């Protein structure tokens, strides 16, 4: 084996290992949020949602006292400190928005209502926030990460030699990993 190849293998191992360690955090961020966001139609990836039904006898019809009555309602079922805004989506319904994304819908004719309380999913909320590319600095960082993923691909060709490497079993795995998305595209596109 030539010295050049030896050097290439050595540097591939070093870069794959050290850059890999550096990007463990961001890899986990994209992996966790990737699963969470993939199943968006099955669940709310950012919040847990708790529904609570209630009945009120307060007059919540549109009037000068509406705001005061809403605050009285909140005193009973939540806290007036959480009031944010309200409006009437139709003649029968009052919708109240609370701080933190929660909301309450009340049928003003019969007093039946449902409070929809949202609570951030710890860790997953934060990873989703980053996954959605919140600002330019993060775009740069995630671009560097994407570049590092390409680096991992290239260096993986040289790390292992022989029948377990790219010209042996590793090559078969690589082809399988490429064929699966191609088959998917041929079938679904």
């Amino acid at each position: 084996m030539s010295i050049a190849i030896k050097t290439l293998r050595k540097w591939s191992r070093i870069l794959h290992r050290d850059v890999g360690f550096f990007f463990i955090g961001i890899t986990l961020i994209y992996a966790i949020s990737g699963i969470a966001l993939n199943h968006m139609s099955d669940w709310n990836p950012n919040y847990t949602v708790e529904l609570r039904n209630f009945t009120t006898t307060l007059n919540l019809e549109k009037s000068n006292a509406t705001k005061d009555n809403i605050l009285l309602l909140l005193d009973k079922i939540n806290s007036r400190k959480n009031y944010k805004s309200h409006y009437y989506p139709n003649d029968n319904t009052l919708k109240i928005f609370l701080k933190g994304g929660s909301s309450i819908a009340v049928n003003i004719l019969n007093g039946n209502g449902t409070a929809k309380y949202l609570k951030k999913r710890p860790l997953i909320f934060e990873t989703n926030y980053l996954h959605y590319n919140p600002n330019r600095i993060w775009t740069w960082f995630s671009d560097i990460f994407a570049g590092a993923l390409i680096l991992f691909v290239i260096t993986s060709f040289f790390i292992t030699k022989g029948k377990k490497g790219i010209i042996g079993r590793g090559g078969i795995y690589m082809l399988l990993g490429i064929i699966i998305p191609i088959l998917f595209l041929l079938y679904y596109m």
Partner: protein
Amino acid sequence: MKKIIFLLAIFTVLISCKTETKKVNQIKGVKSQEVPQIAIGEFNTKAGDFVNKEVQVKGIVDHVCKHGGKKILLVTDDGDVHVTSEERFNETLKGSEIILTGVVLEGRIDEAYCLKMEGDNIKSHSEGTSNKEQFEAKKEHIQQYRDQMKANNIDHISNYSLKYVSYSKVE
């Protein structure tokens, strides 16, 4: 080791320099003089005069789309307006009263659109994406468009929405 710590420190400073991407004007009650304001309740009737032009609307953010956060529904007691954006809206906007500046977009529903909807409906049903109930509901919806156009003797229905430019919070 010192070099690594130094590099990490620089990197941390860079990451912490958060930049705000939304053009937010937080000044209370301030609105641009040049941009006409339309009441949301009158949006559907007046928007046609402002297609591809900027207008302002004032309302409460009822909904921020959880699929990407690039759509919001702005509401009042009298109606609603859909707003789309190329940037994400912050989810904390939900329930906030805002004055939003946006460009009026017109979406036209005509016979060609109905035919396309019909084709898509048949395709998604035959592929198993939609069930019989959804298929029939969509079919009925398309028929409603056709009936509406026929009843009003028009060849298209206009749906108006806004393309986000900026907003200011009303506090």
